[in-house]
């Protein structure tokens, strides 16, 4: 494929994926407010548009017009840079996530991910997650406020601790698939056991899936692990001093991380875009993307369901859970998988 | 195609910056960061030579250098915290008495 065509196709893919992702972030907020509202026996947003569907637009306009206040004693360069770091690295990890089978147009095979099929796709996502910790830590420190500092330190210590369990829980999947490339991991889940149970990684790797879900909930600072940003505990944690658009950027970063985690869980444990394929050619091309989106939606629903149901951990319980229970469990999973595959 | 010597010169300059930082800085944490900069310069040299001689052992060695650097940073920062608790300062010129 000539270089100019590759660049044009990549720009088009980036534009489409970013547009879909940012809309998905906005509507995940809407979904959360509706679902948590119904779980708490109330309606959620209903006034702005039918079923409150224009609520994200109203929120966006509100954030744009709010007064952007910079308190006087903050460390200005980092105060301004921290939400940028959080958002940029939350959106970057989408670059290596494939959404479906490669499509053939005009004799060129175009993979449905922004980059081509990277050999070390999973490692890049882990790397970007590691760098995202800086957004939180620097926001807490630069705010020059004891609540923000404590919230930032707690949040970044929590994220760093659970990154290890996150990585280890994925190694079981890697052993079974034999590659870091996300497309090859999905392709290793084609086919069926005994004719009707799909060969998804969740069935052999349910312990790995449990570790991944717990670690991912802690990485994205969601209930039951959201003490660092709990309003009743620490004022608002690391984003206390932020208002208007900068606060909206932290919010967007959190939901974009949620969507990335849901996409990864789908790719690694639930067979990615494999599902029943039927119908004419154009339908066959679109159905894998539709199955992928449906599975990601189920994941996001589970995320929001857990948020509406569980109380939050205290901080020492949270750290003890991460280091003393989840890490040994992930190691046991790794050893069991390695022994099973070696035989 | 980039000549191998360009990589080596970049590695040497990074190492020299690390040595300079180690000599002129007075804050103990910045001195530690200069040590990490020196280690990074050496890592670049290893990977460049591994690519030049097609010896994968160079990249494996970078792995070990990173592990040792992480262990050293951990223990070094713990020592800094312990020294700060007693001396209340991070300036190496003021940590000049064996016993307070």
């Amino acid at each position: 494929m000539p270089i100019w065509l590759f660049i044009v196709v990549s720009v088009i893919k980036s534009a489409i994926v970013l547009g879909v992702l940012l809309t998905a972030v906005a509507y995940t907020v809407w979904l959360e407010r509706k679902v948590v509202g119904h779980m708490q026996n109330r309606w959620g947003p209903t006034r702005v548009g039918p079923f409150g569907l224009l609520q994200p637009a109203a929120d966006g306009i509100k954030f744009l017009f709010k007064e952007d206040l910079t308190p006087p004693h903050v460390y200005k360069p980092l105060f301004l840079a921290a939400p940028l770091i959080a958002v940029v690295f939350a959106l970057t990890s989408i670059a290596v996530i494939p959404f479906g089978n490669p499509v053939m147009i005009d004799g060129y095979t175009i993979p449905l991910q922004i980059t081509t099929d990277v050999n070390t796709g999973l490692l890049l996502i882990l790397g970007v997650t590691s760098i995202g910790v800086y957004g939180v830590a620097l926001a807490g420190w630069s705010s020059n406020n004891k609540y923000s500092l404590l919230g930032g330190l707690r949040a970044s210590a929590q994220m760093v601790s659970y990154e290890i369990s996150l990585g280890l829980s994925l190694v079981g999947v890697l052993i079974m698939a034999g590659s870091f490339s996300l497309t090859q991991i999905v392709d290793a889940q084609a086919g069926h056991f005994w004719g009707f149970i799909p060969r998804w990684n969740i069935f052999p790797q349910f312990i790995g899936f449990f570790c991944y879900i717990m670690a991912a909930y802690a990485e994205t600072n969601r209930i039951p692990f959201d003490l660092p940003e709990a309003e009743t505990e620490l004022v608002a944690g690391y984003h206390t001093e932020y208002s208007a658009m900068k606060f909206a950027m932290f919010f967007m970063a959190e939901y974009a991380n949620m969507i990335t985690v849901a996409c990864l869980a789908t790719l690694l444990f639930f067979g990615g875009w494999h599902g029943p394929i039927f119908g004419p050619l154009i339908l066959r091309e679109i159905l894998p993307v539709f199955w992928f989106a449906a599975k990601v939606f189920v994941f996001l629903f589970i995320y929001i369901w857990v948020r509406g149901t569980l109380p939050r951990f205290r901080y020492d319980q949270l750290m003890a859970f991460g280091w003393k229970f989840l890490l040994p469990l992930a190691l046991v999973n790794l050893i069991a998988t390695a022994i099973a595959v070696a035989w | 195609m980039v000549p191998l010597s360009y990589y080596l010169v970049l590695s040497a300059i990074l190492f020299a910056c690390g040595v300079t930082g180690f000599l002129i800085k007075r804050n103990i944490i910045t001195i530690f960061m200069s040590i990490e900069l020196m280690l990074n310069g050496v890592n670049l040299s290893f990977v460049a030579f591994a690519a030049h001689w097609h010896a994968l052992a160079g990249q494996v060695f970078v792995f070990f250098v990173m592990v040792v650097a992480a262990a050293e940073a951990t223990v070094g920062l713990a020592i800094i915290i312990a020294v700060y608790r007693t001396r209340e300062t991070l300036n190496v010129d003021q940590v000049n008495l064996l016993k307070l």
Partner: protein
Amino acid sequence: MISIHLILFLAFGAVALAGAINLLAQTHPINSALSLIAVMAALAGEYLLLGAEFVAAVQVIVYAGAVMVLFVFVIMLLNAGVEEHTKGSRVAVIFGIPGVLISSILVAWTVLQHSGTEEVAVGALPGAPKTIGVLLFHGFLLPFEITSILILIAIMGAVVLASKPPTGPPAASPAGGPRKVD
């Protein structure tokens, strides 16, 4: 010969050098820490140019994402402030900077004089995780196990050094019945 390889090498190299010089020039340690993170990211780009994709990913995950987070934590916890200048530091600046400058120019000149026309292609030695893993667990198994023990020792040492010193024998409990201590 200007190729995209040379342009990318110079771009990443310029970022690495700018970060290294900024580390020396800044007075507040948090700025130095952020410059060092920029250096590490630029070096990860250089490793990718040389084909070492696993090493580049590990550099970002371990070095820039864990070791530097540790440095930033310690700077935040100890509330490190701007450096002050002492007599010793002025002497070091007067003698140190020219000395290191001269020696580094000497080294660079020697290397460039004696280099032949050996060139390194883009992605010269593909360091796929699988091949590195095989080498690590077959050829380098003993160093691997020894470094794992080294990390264990470092963890134990750090926990012991950074924990609060134990207090003396507990005082007599005040009258008032049993207390539930959590």
